[in-house]
């Protein structure tokens, strides 16, 4: 307890003495975390949109006359890519066709007997797995033919990949910049006190005792930066969502207050952890190099 008290006092001393650099670091960390947060929210929205589009994707499989459609449906339902399978009877299929043809539906009466067979409507989980699913279905003896929107599937899959890569790049870039800024600030803070650190080490202070205030400084700056960023997200995201929804009402955007609050809390925790890791690395590296005997 006493050591903690001394360490907290030393941390306060360091933060106060280093306030200009600390303030600049705080602003940079806040800006980076804000960008990181908005980029992640943007990606969350794109992913949710793609997911919705993907869940609307239907692969139509026509079943052989001799096969039992229910048994085939059960077998297909077991495939991991499949979200749902619905068996469409010949009568249902005819009714749909008639509805689609509208005023020209009478033409179908000329055929006489219903020519349509059993088919299966297969909903998939992701667009990227559709090609494999189609190959799988084609290899099944019970399936006569498979119809799907090949171009749409391919485009959705490639859009999903681009969105994933863009988010990952933005995420890595923001983390790198934030880490670099925190790392450099703590390094400058340590470097400006290298004489003091040498003295402390000479009179018997442990590495942990000397390093902890610097680690706390870095963690505190990142934590505050992330807090500011979280507030910035709350104050910019919701007005942005409202503006977008009034312009494009059909667009469904992630705007659940609970989800966004949880996301902001996660961002703050992430910021503090990032600051802590960076400060630990720089402080320990500095201590080892400074206190190494000649």
């Amino acid at each position, binding site marked *: 307890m*006493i050591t903690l008290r*001394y360490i907290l006092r030393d941390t306060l001393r360091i933060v106060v003495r280093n306030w200009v650099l600390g303030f600049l670091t705080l602003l940079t960390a806040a800006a980076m975390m804000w960008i990181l947060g908005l980029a992640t929210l943007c990606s969350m929205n794109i992913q949710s949109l793609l997911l919705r589009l993907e869940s609307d994707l239907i692969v139509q499989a026509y079943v052989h006359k001799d096969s039992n459609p229910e048994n085939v449906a059960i077998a297909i339902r077991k495939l991991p890519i499949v979200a749902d399978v619905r068996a469409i009877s010949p009568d249902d299929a005819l009714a749909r066709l008639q509805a689609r043809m509208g005023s020209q539906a009478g033409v179908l009466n000329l055929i006489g007997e219903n020519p349509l067979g059993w088919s299966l409507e297969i909903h998939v989980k992701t667009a990227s797995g559709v090609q494999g699913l189609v190959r799988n279905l084609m290899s099944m003896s019970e399936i006569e033919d498979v119809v799907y929107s090949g171009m749409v599937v391919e485009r959705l899959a490639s859009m999903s990949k681009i969105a994933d890569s863009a988010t990952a790049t933005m995420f890595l870039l923001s983390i790198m910049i934030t880490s670099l800024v925190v790392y450099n600030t703590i390094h400058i803070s340590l470097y400006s006190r290298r004489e003091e650190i040498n003295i402390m080490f*000479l009179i018997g202070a442990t590495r942990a005792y000397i390093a902890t205030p610097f680690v706390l400084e870095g963690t505190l700056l990142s934590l505050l930066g992330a807090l500011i960023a979280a507030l910035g997200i709350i104050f910019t995201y919701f007005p942005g969502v409202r503006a977008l929804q009034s312009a494009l009402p059909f667009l469904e955007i992630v705007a659940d207050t609970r989800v966004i609050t949880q996301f902001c809390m996660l961002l703050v925790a992430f910021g503090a952890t990032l600051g802590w890791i960076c400060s630990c690395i720089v402080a320990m590296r500095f201590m080892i190099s400074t206190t190494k*005997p000649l």
Partner: protein
Amino acid sequence: MNIKFSGVTKIFKPDIIAVRDVDLEIKRGEFVYIIGATGSGKSTLIHMITRETLPTKGSVSVGNLNLKNMKSSEIPYYRRDVGVVAQDFKLISHLTVFENVAFVMETMSVPPNLVKYRADKVIDQVGLRRRRNMTPLQLSGGEQQRVAIARALANTPSLFIADEPTGNLDYHTSDDIMKILLSINASGVTVVMSTHNQSIVDTYPQRVLELSQGRLVRDEQGGGYFPL
């Protein structure tokens, strides 16, 4: 605390031999001067005792500890038993006299009330009570050296190392510092002091270890700066 150097050589890169084949033993409670010209290896010898420098060959032991084999995590605990005073004082400039002295005990998690009691006691011992709340920059060289001595005494060390403690001071101030060091030694603490100060060595005769080009060329009990 006994100090023993056995066949110690220190070579700094690329090939500067600072100390060569030194064998010596300093017994507990002794007062020892280490003298010699600039570059003779005095500071290197001192730094090997504080483990700021490791020998290239041979071994240095203090008490039961072989300093070369010491783990880095053990060094702080060793140094807490060694009071160190340097020519350039090595005080933390933004801390007051009291805080500089108290800091040593704080690193050991000594409770604040005990820190205050002991810090005030050693500050009194070196005659700086009235300067307690001043920063080192507000003090004279002699006063700064007294703060450094007070700080070194704060943990009641059993070994006191002074690397040219009077190097930057005038005769009278040096004399005052010397009296403080002798009183520390009188309380049973081993004192090792490197110096160029001829008058100090001649006025207060003690055991003299003389180095020349890294070699120990004289080990004389009660000798003066120059051999008899």
